[in-house]
């Protein structure tokens, strides 16, 4: 498709042009260019997508980024390592524990630091719990994108319980500042594990409600089946990751394929899809909620006693060097690249935000579908603008 010249971007349809009296010779076919966002209910933050429409069919969709840019990486270069960890929370703000985990792992790798056993288990528990919370939030908003309002409130009801648990553990509800270099900030409060187990039992019971409202709903299936199909080769070529990739049938989960922390000790499966459409992405995430719950059950069973933080110097100065560490965030491969010059502040920080790479595929998977499918497709990528714009 030829790109529109500047003078052609004006909407040709409208009463004003009509009143001036159209010259029949000048009438020609043009795509309707619609600006979706940055203020739009279904762009999950401040994403802007420029849509070129032919009737209701999407000819092209171009994402425009940067509305939430706040110089995360540059600011990190002037802060100490200890200060950076809580700052990471602001990237993927619906799964802040995983942001902290990624950064802590990178710094610990540079310092060659051993994390106590109990701290590793606590880290697994809180990150998997956060993954469930993140997927529940996604589930609710995805339903909302398709016009189903009620699953949204059901998902929030359950996510609220996780947030309450986190509040009890860390005092915060969204930006936890809980993971520390070499461990976690504090041990689990009394009775926390019991409450957690009660919650997981409850979650197992209510998952059926989502199946009833969405999974088996013919309208929901009709809206998501065969929509936004992503072929595995395209996904791999654009370095997509996470549930977005797995829905296309590629079994790639860093927890399984490149185990970090203590993930090799747990028995869990990696749900994958077959067709790579929106419905498969939904099923994969739903499956991941169940698998995360399985991991937490095992962690609850095996968690040892002991210290929750290694002996770490007050001022952290990793030796000169560079390192990359990556974890499986709810959105995909979350990587942190650190360059240390031996001082208390990093020389360079790079944040590989999975949604940024996944979002690149938006034009490819939305061409040819209906305008109404756009919300389903954008929703199914599961983007968080906080980490895309950084």
């Amino acid at each position, binding site marked *: 498709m030829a790109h529109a010249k500047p003078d052609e971007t004006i909407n040709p349809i409208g009463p004003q042009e009509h009143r001036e009296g159209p010259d029949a010779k000048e009438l020609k076919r043009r795509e309707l260019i619609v600006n979706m966002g940055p203020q739009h*209910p279904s762009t999950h933050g401040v994403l802007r997508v420029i849509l070129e429409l032919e009737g209701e069919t999407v000819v092209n969709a171009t994402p425009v980024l940067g509305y939430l840019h706040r110089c995360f990486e540059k600011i990190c270069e002037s802060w100490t390592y200890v200060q950076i960890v809580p700052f990471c929370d602001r990237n993927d703000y619906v799964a802040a524990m995983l942001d902290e985990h990624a950064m802590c792992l990178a710094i610990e790798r540079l310092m060659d630091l051993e994390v106590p056993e109990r701290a590793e288990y606590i880290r697994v528990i809180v990150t998997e719990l956060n993954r469930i919370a993140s997927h529940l939030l996604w589930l609710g908003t995805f339903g909302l994108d398709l016009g189903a*309002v009620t699953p949204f409130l059901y998902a929030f009801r359950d996510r609220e319980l996780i947030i309450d648990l986190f509040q009890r553990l860390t005092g915060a509800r969204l930006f936890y500042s809980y993971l520390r270099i070499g461990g976690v900030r504090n041990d689990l409060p009394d009775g926390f594990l019991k409450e957690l187990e009660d919650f997981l039992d409850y979650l197992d019971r209510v998952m059926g409600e989502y199946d009833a409202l969405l999974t088996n*709903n013919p309208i929901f299936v009709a809206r998501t089946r065969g929509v936004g199909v992503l072929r595995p080769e395209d996904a791999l070529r654009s370095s997509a990751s996470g549930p977005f990739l797995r829905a296309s049938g590629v079994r790639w989960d860093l927890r399984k394929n490149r185990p970090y922390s203590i993930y090799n000790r747990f028995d869990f499966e990696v749900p994958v899809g077959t067709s790579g459409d929106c419905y498969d992405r939904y099923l994969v995430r739903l499956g991941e909620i169940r698998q995360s719950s399985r991991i937490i059950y095992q962690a609850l069973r095996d968690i040892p006693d002991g210290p929750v933080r290694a002996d770490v110097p007050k001022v952290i100065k990793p030796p000169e060097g560079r390192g990359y560490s990556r974890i499986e965030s709810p959105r995909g491969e979350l990587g942190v690249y650190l360059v240390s010059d031996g001082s208390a502040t990093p020389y360079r920080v790079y944040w590989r935000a999975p949604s940024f790479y996944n979002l690149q595929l938006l034009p490819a998977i939305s061409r040819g579908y209906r305008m109404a499918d756009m919300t389903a497709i954008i929703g199914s990528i599961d983007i968080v603008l906080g980490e895309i714009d950084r």
Partner: protein
Amino acid sequence: MTTTELLWDALAKVALILAFISLNALFLIWAERKVSGFIQRRLGPVRVGRPHGFLQTIADVIKLLSKEDVVPGPADRLLFILAPVVFFLPAVLVYVVVPIGPRAVISDLNIGILYVIAVTSVGVLSIFMAGWGSNNKWALLGSMRAAAALIAYEVPVVLSVIGVIMLAGSLSLQDVIRAQDGLWFILLQPLGFMVYIIGSLAELSRIPFDLNEAESELVAGFNVEYSGLRWALFFLVEYSNIVVVSAVGTALFLGGWRGPFLPPVVWFLLKTYLLVFVIMWIRWTLPRLRIDQLTGLAWKFLIPVALVNIGITGLILL
């Protein structure tokens, strides 16, 4: 009656209808919030007017009335201003034939059903006026969808009603109710009732058919540029139409005002609001269809089903 008396009579009836529409909207908007709240494990409004925030809608109306009257610069002023009025008129007119009791009807037209169908189909015109006149791309998309959907769904609704007309042998709503002596037409015409309810949901543009508004896709669809009083008018009519659809459905399929013990008017309102509740229940449970699925459902499923229904009815009558 003299001309003056006729005039006063007509004015009184119009005032009655307007009062009903307003009070009904006040009640239904509150009820919808409560119903959705309870379905979603919330309480709904509880602050304004205890118990249960029953004054919430009145507070909202006051807010809407006190808003600035905005007409966007690029809009087609005439169409933009006229659209809500054109939307409002058929909503008032249609109440003329709604029979709430054996004698409680403003005018028992002998072509009542035809009248209802004809009057309600004017609504799509105003939606298109609003969408076009706003000169906004989202509104335009919304109104195009509305035009496609409403035209598609008028056909099955009309067809579904034909079965009832065949059984009753009359186009008058009162005659239809009288014909349901003992056996309601929902039992004789289950297919017809199903098609009528689905088609009406689409004509009301409510989830799963609320494509012309589609909050999460088109922001607000055809009424995105409207605010204050004009927007309130759209909202008012929307809730008035829910009652109209339910009331006509009650008259056609649920035996109208028939029922034991209670007075006919009470029976009629009970059945009507039961249908209203069902419509709300559906809205807060289902996702939204896509435009091609929506029209596909009408042309490929509802219309054949309605035709089969007519065929079966005809065979039985023979």
